[in-house]
């Protein structure tokens, strides 16, 4: 069941992205940045966690969850350490995505050549 909803919700988030590409003629960078901000805002209103509970990877795999995790990490630390925590906790949850991207990016640069 969770697989079905992961498919539907994940697909729908991608459709929103596609509409931003095609209808609003945004570049990929603009689209993805907007989606990240939307994800952060949704978490600001406590709306993203229910979506994750409902759709699992359908909500955690799209880039919107990056914004959500950033707010989440910041909020967790902020609850413990006050306002400073906002900065120190920012990457608490998202560190794996960014470090994986850097590490695999470098490994990729060692292993592969662009195919053109």
């Amino acid at each position: 069941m969770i697989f079905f909803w992961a498919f539907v919700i994940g697909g729908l988030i991608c459709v929103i992205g596609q509409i931003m590409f095609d209808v609003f003629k945004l570049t990929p960078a603009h689209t993805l940045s907007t989606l990240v901000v939307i994800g952060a805002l949704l978490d600001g209103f406590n709306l993203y966690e229910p979506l994750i509970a409902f759709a699992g990877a359908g909500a955690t795999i799209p880039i919107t969850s990056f914004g959500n995790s950033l707010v989440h990490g910041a909020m967790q630390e902020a609850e413990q350490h006050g306002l400073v925590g906002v900065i120190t906790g920012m990457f608490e949850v998202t560190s794996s995505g960014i470090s994986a991207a850097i590490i695999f990016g470098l490994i990729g640069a060692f292993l592969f050549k662009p195919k053109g």
Partner: protein
Amino acid sequence: MSNNKKKNLTPVQQEYQKFQDEREVKRPVIKNCIKAFFVGGVICIIGQAIQTFFIYNFDFTEQTAGNPTVAVMIFISMLLTGFGVYDRLAQFGGAGSAVPVTGFGNAVISAAIEHRTEGFVLGVGGNMFKLAGSVIMFGVFSAFVIAIVKTILVQWGGL
């Protein structure tokens, strides 16, 4: 946006743009959306499968399984990018392959591979986040603002 720009155009330019618009091949929005839906959905199913795999076989809960899942997805993205498959997938799937975290991985990895000819320091290091950097910047800044506002509301506003 487009209206603002139109104001600065001469009548000749406006006339031509209308003329050109009538002949331009329009993007197949509906078809693209359906493709994006399926490609994005399938990528999320793969993500869910990996996440379930981690929950069943390792000491990860639903909360914590997200991290290794993202790492594995980016690893897959590296292979697809390196073998020259991801750009073709993207031509088909559009946002369906760009919006999931694999698209983020692809943005970083493709830039890293491409600029290897300029060396590892200035090329790979300097250009790795050429495309994905804006995502991180906007994500971090918006998260910063939202978290500050929320913390203030929670701690001092008694919300």
